[in-house]
């Protein structure tokens, strides 16, 4: 028969053994996690994008804008407007939301489906012309969005407020200029 004291001593011994084992396991797990973390590569980032400011002004979209007609490309040049910061892309990469006008505009540009026709970086495509960099003056921009004359659907102030439209404009305005074609070997004829 086992005495009460013996039992208590055995329990204590068992407790100590269990505690030691748990401690050892914890140390091993922590060490493994540190090792794995050290070996894990950082999340790949997209390549850097253009940084130069634009020297162009886009005309308002014309009727028949859905045709892939190079004649609709913007002409003329004016200094870049606004002072929105340059973006690395249309989608912010950092976890923290970009609260600059262009950053807010980037999210609104996506949310409101502008990218569907004018493409992710506002560079334009077969369904809609390029918007930026260096867009048309804001007043014309706003007027066209509210009352488009071509195939573009109208966006009322109920759908996009004036303030949101200004943010989208800031995003469009912040689009960096591409490198000159002569510096892109793949585009040299």
């Amino acid at each position, binding site marked *: 028969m086992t005495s009460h004291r013996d039992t208590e001593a055995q329990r204590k011994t068992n407790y100590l053994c269990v505690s030691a084992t748990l401690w050892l396991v914890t140390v091993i797990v922590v060490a493994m996690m540190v090792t794995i973390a050290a070996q894990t590569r950082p999340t790949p980032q997209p390549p850097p994008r253009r940084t130069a400011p634009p020297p162009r002004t886009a005309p308002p979209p014309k009727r028949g804008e859905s045709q892939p007609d190079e004649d609709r490309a913007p002409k003329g040049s004016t200094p870049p407007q606004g002072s929105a910061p340059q973006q690395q892309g*249309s989608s912010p990469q950092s976890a923290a939301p970009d609260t600059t006008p262009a950053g807010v505009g980037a999210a609104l540009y996506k949310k409101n489906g502008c990218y*569907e026709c004018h493409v992710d970086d506002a560079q334009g495509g077969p369904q809609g012309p390029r918007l930026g960099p260096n867009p048309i003056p804001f007043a014309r921009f706003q007027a066209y969005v509210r009352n488009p004359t071509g*195939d573009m659907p109208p966006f009322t102030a109920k759908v996009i407020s004036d303030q949101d439209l200004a943010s989208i404009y800031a995003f469009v305005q912040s689009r960096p200029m591409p490198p000159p074609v002569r510096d892109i070997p793949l585009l040299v004829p």
Partner: protein
Amino acid sequence: MARSKTLNPKALQRREFLQKGALAGAAIVATGAELSAQGTAPASPAPPASPAQGVTPIMTAAGEAIGPGEVQVIGDNQRSGSDFMVDVLKSLGFEYVAANPGSSFRGLHESIINYGGNHAPEMITCMHEESAVAMAHGYYKAEGKPMLVAAHGTVGLQHASMALYNAWCDRVPVYMVIGNYNDAAVRRPAEWYHGVQDAALMVRDFTKWDDTPWSLTHFAESAVRAYNVAVTPPMAPVLLVLDGIMQEQGVDIRKLPAIPKTPIPSAPQGDSASVEQAARMIVAAESPVIVVDRLARTPNGMKLLVELAELVGAGVVDQTSRMNFPTRHPLNQSLRAGAAIGDADLVVGLEVADFWASVNALRDQLHRSTEPRTKAGAKMITITTGDLYVRANYQDFRRLQDVDLALAADAEATLPSLIEAVKRLATADRKRVFQERASKLTELSRVAADRARVNASYAWNASPVSTARLAAELWAQIKNEDWSLVSSYYTSDLGGWPRRLWNFDKPYQWLGHAGGGGIGYGAPASVGGALANKKHGRLSVAIQTDGDLMYAPGVLWTAAHHRIPLLSVMNNNRAYHMELMHVQRMCNARNRSVDRGAIGSQITDPNIDYAKLAVSMGVYAEGPIDNPADLGPALKRAIAVVKRGEPAVVDVVTQVR
């Protein structure tokens, strides 16, 4: 009277044999004892069919009581009906037969692979009937002759119908055969679901001709007729319904019918008076523009169009349903199509599917409106076989445009006489005008091309990859090869970037679009085009959209299985963006927020891993690639695989357009 519980063991064996479908000619077998027990015994037992005679029992009550012979095989002096069908099909020059197997054409299937040696036509195993037809669609546009398609009756044809509709809208000949057990008395149980009174009915609105031959003589004539009907402009798919029993029955070799040798009819040309009038209008015009869509049905079509355009210094706007005109030809005004048509005092439409939309614009707003693209007083000429072939139900004929002269004729066939007439009418003064005009157009096209390159530079380093960057990277890898862009479906040609940046100057370098707007064409058509290009040693390239591939991705397996060299570069933008845009347009029209417009159109959560999908079917693959700097090396590795004779997929995550 109670049914006898004691059945003859031999009768049971026979029943099992029949239930397994080993004998198509007799559906019900009962022993005399059993029938006597039910009071339905025949007056006198009929003798078993003689295998030497190869006679299929006549379906009378007495005939149905006949058991199978000990041996039922085709006699030495006989040939199966489907063997003869293969003889006829071989005479038509088919290289391949694309098929998903089906029991209603099992006789033909066996004849192709054994009697025909699985060569000309060679069986191409497809995972879906729609893929088989779309493969034939793409094959035709690369090779210039039809591919045979075989399909199961009813269910197979239902699967195939969408692709048939695309081919019909695109005026491409697809030669299709299906099986059907016309005689209800001999159908196995499953054949009742597939048996049909009028098998071709469901696709008759969008096939040019069909027939259900009732004898081998009938088959031979209809098979040759179907081929000629299909390839005579206006071209379109044809369908033959092959009776199952006729395929399987034996026929005395000495009684086989002859195979007709009727030549293919020539294409309809414009009458001489109309051609002369068209030539006068072209010579007199100050700013003519030639709009082409499905003009070049042979390699000669491009040569003729170049000759006409250069002869009169006219700009050409290519709507690209065929490879009509070199992209870098100085008279190619496609990059400034709106301006070229708007400036024209004469618009000449050559095989333009939608001439009305070429000279008018429709505004897709809540209240739709239209306006002309042309200036007031502009004259118009059309030459098209579309005027020879208008059906009632499906509305592919489009709006009726007022024109000054319409020739119901094949434009390519008419061009030689039109060119000769223009040569006769062109005076020295007019020739000087033509030259000056050509110089101006050359400068305009150069400016447009420069502008296209500038436009391509925007978002050059963006991630996801811009579609312009994808096109440029691909061009860099293939431009020194003998390449062929084998398929594309509207936006899957990257919004036209290849035609803006690449030098297309050979007839096989561009195969056009789906025709009817049915998604799911691109992947199988590219495999069909690549199959045609294989023997020519061309590097086949497809720009493959994600939504299109997912309709029937099994065609990747077909490419791997048959060693069809094809580079498929995914334009993976993870949504049905055209449809998304339509929903957004409805949000706008109803003054509602558009931020939910993507519901129902996006292909995300989870993202599809197309490289793994391809690898699972034995196809070399890389991706997903969203860094443009990684694209060139990946394409180079994939092209090395394709040059070894195998398919490869490079999954590129792209911007929306």
